């Protein structure tokens, strides 16, 4: 699997936009996720979501 990565990285950037911009400037394959804290940072909701993920 690393072989494909080393041949051509295709990136999903999650977080700081400038990393995505740098990748685009280098002609790399990148998309950006405008990330926000899950459930708006609501701890109770995050716990519930994580619990349900495990079902």
């Amino acid at each position, binding site marked *: 699997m690393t072989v494909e990565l080393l041949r051509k990285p295709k990136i999903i950037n999650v977080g700081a936009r400038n990393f995505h911009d740098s990748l685009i400037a280098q002609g790399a394959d990148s998309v950006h996720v405008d990330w*926000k804290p899950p459930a708006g940072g609501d701890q109770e909701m995050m716990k519930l*979501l994580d619990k349900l993920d495990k079902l």
Partner: protein
Amino acid sequence: MGKIEEVNEKAVKRILDAKPVATGIKKAKDVIPGMTERTLLHAGPPIEWERMSGPTRGAVMGAAIFEDWAGDEIEAAKLAESGEITFAPCHDHDAVGPMAGVISPSMSVYVVENQEHGNKAYCNLNEGLGKVLRYGAYSKEVIEKLKWMEETMAPVLAEAFKRSGPIDLKEIISKALHMGDEGHCRNVATSLIFLKTMVPYMMETGFDRETISKVMKFMGDNVLTFLNLLMPACKAMLDAGHGIEYSTIVTALSRNGTDFGIRVSGLPGRWFTASAPVPKTLFFPGFKEGDQGRDLGDSAIAETMGLGGFASATAPAVVQVIGGTPQDAANYSREMGEITVAENPSFTIPFLNFQGAPLGIDIRKVVETGILPFINTGVAHKDPGVGGVGFGVLRAPMDCFKKALRAFAEEYK
């Protein structure tokens, strides 16, 4: 794949496999399950008279007058307060109603059947825009029109349906999405297709030409004629995916002018409610900010099915009307993709390279992303007895989804 993902996939498959067809017109008391001689169904989650919004009260009073239970709004109000009228959500009786959504026993309703799974859905006939019952008006003109619809329009259409056989509603919606409709605030193309389909059969009925002509004109002049067929079509499709254990798919978004409620597939029999938001409104001439009531109607069943606000990209005109750009319209459709689990291959969006409309709102995704369902809607005046004041947009309230998530985690430990 997790258990919930697996089950949601099954639920969505049922929704996609559903085949809603319109089979005829019947009186509410004859077909709607649980309808009594003194039942008034209404849009949205359960609500008592004391908490009802202005337009819903207006529609209730108008319906009571229409049914001859009361002579005027004062008598009607007394009757409603007395507890003699049984109020119930349309949704809990296999029905849907736009705006106040009041369906009374003697009203004619479209009968829609899901030929794939057998479930049915019902909706009253659309009165047009402005001063109408569903926007809370109850004047003499309103009642007279309702009586005309009941005594003249419904019988003509009922006869026409007998000759036409079942009308494929999904097909009409699919076509109209490529003609600038989004299925909630814009039903111009759907209504035209429906009218042109029914005209030959209406002509074949035994009614005189003048009567038929008046009915056709009424339907042709009303750009929302098909809304009252689209809504039960969507309900019939979504109900096929309702009541599936472990599913987090939303099967109804619905409002009564006071509360906004959602139904979730894996939690049947329950409503999750929060205060209904006030829509951001573009007003008809003569109305202004502050006139609008809170969000109202079962018509958000369109959004629940990936139409309306979710399909904004098919009808940039709608978003432009409220100050957005065509790019904004496309962005709304994309944004709704973040909170849904599938795309509907039957309802495709040309502007987005014929991507399917976003289908299957997942309460988990709504809570996780903070992205709320985007709704385009008609807006009623906040007071009873006035009518429609314009069109608007809003987001479903987060609290509904958080409540549902809590209940889901409690139920499925």
